[in-house]
């Protein structure tokens, strides 16, 4: 049975839980380190990255998540979750997991009045455009190392990327009923991780 954790310290975590359940994947809310045991992947949701980051540190979740991320454990960050994944957020001082080679700019589009929706091509999940919802959203200013860009706005700015076991999106797939990105995370991140673990156990 595949179980994916959803960091449930603050923000839109229940929407991710519901999306996973629609795919027939078990979801577990993660608030304390013990909730990470036995998970096959983790989603860090949208919310306020400063709030989530502080709670993560205070309840000793940052180090175990970081250690797992570095060992190949699949993690997907949406919006605030993407900020937490980034190694560099332009010098802002706030707690991060800091494992992905992306430079992220917070509130990159402005305030709430600049929040928007748009149809976006994300070739990794199929030809049909994806309705993307950006709410006071961050942007990937630049990528480094072996990071692969998955989607850009029409002006070329990066809004989705992956690096090995890590997936980052500026926008909120969990606010739509299009589950293709959740499916992509399960198929292209979680399944290979499980296969590798099974192989290791067998060996």
């Amino acid at each position: 049975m595949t179980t994916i954790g959803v960091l449930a310290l603050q923000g839109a975590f229940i929407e991710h839980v519901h999306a996973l359940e629609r795919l027939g994947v078990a979801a577990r809310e993660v608030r304390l380190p013990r909730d990470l045991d036995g998970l096959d992947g983790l989603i860090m949701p949208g919310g306020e990255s400063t709030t989530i980051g502080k709670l993560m540190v205070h309840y000793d979740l940052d180090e175990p998540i970081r250690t797992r991320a570095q060992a190949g454990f699949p993690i997907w960050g949406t919006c605030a979750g993407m900020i937490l994944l980034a190694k560099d957020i332009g010098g802002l001082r706030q707690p991060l997991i800091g494992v992905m080679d992306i430079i992220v700019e917070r509130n990159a589009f402005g305030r709430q009045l600049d929040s928007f929706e748009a149809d976006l091509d994300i070739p990794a999940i199929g030809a049909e455009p994806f309705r993307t919802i950006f709410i006071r959203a961050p942007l990937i200013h630049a990528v480094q190392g072996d990071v692969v860009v998955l989607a850009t706005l029409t002006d070329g700015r990066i809004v989705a990327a992956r690096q090995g076991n890590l997936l980052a999106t500026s926008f909120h797939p969990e606010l739509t009923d299009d589950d293709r990105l959740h499916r992509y995370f399960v198929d292209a991140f979680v399944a290979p991780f499980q296969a590798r673990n099974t192989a290791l156990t067998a060996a």
Partner: protein
Amino acid sequence: MTSTNGHSEKNGVAKSTWTTKAGLAQMLKGGVIMDVVTPEQAKIAEEAGACAVMALERVPADIRAQGGVARMSDPDLIRGIMEAVSIPVMAKARIGHFVEAQVLEALGADYIDESEVLTPADEQYHIEKQAFNVPFVCGARDLGEALRRIGEGAAMIRSKGEPGTGNIVEAVRHLRAITSQIRRLSVAPPEELMAIAKELGAPYELVREVAKNGKLPVVLFCAGGVATPADAALVMQLGAEGVFVGSGIFKSGDPARRGKAIVEAVTHFRDAGIIAEVSRGLGEPMSGLEIGKLPKEALMAGRGW
């Protein structure tokens, strides 16, 4: 709910849609929105883990104590708070005062609270909120009031409680009213829905939507009387999706510590061990008021309909 004020551009790009308005409230869930009156307080709130701040001139306890007409805050104050923190900044407009709301939109506030804490500008009508690009949060004492505000365009609801009292009793009453009416709707057969809509004084389409989904079409927070971590966890267990704390933090002995404790109690609202731990040694809570001893004209929850 399909209503939207979104304006479309090419490539299907649309700003200020219903999804972006209601969506910001979804991002605030599981969090604490704190009243602040200065940029310094806003920083303390952000540091304590607030998911947003409410910029206002006086907290409800002071409005209550000092009396007089309470209005929208000075634009300089709101700007100063917006510059001081990276989290969303909300601001209050008087009930029915659509020009205050226009000013707050022009300032770039992230959310407008059409609030009974301020002195109402219109005793007949609330603001027509669909017309705005900025989203609104409104107070409600029961499901009918909540759905009337949503019908006008509110993208987030908070139970009203009795602001500035440090007394949770009214917040519990209003939250229970809303959730029990939702429960009743969710088991009502379709032929009863129009009669219930009439009884609630609520738009029929919204009544049908609540009956179908078993929840409000927007995020539901609790406000008005939260003073302790246990208060915050109580309303979360009663079905609130997040908490507004007005006077409860900056009218207490140690705002930074109490703010942080309330944030943690909201995250871990079902974990009594953690609530016990964070409740220790917080110093003096704000002094509370007994609702029954307040003169009727001093009550704020009855403002608006």
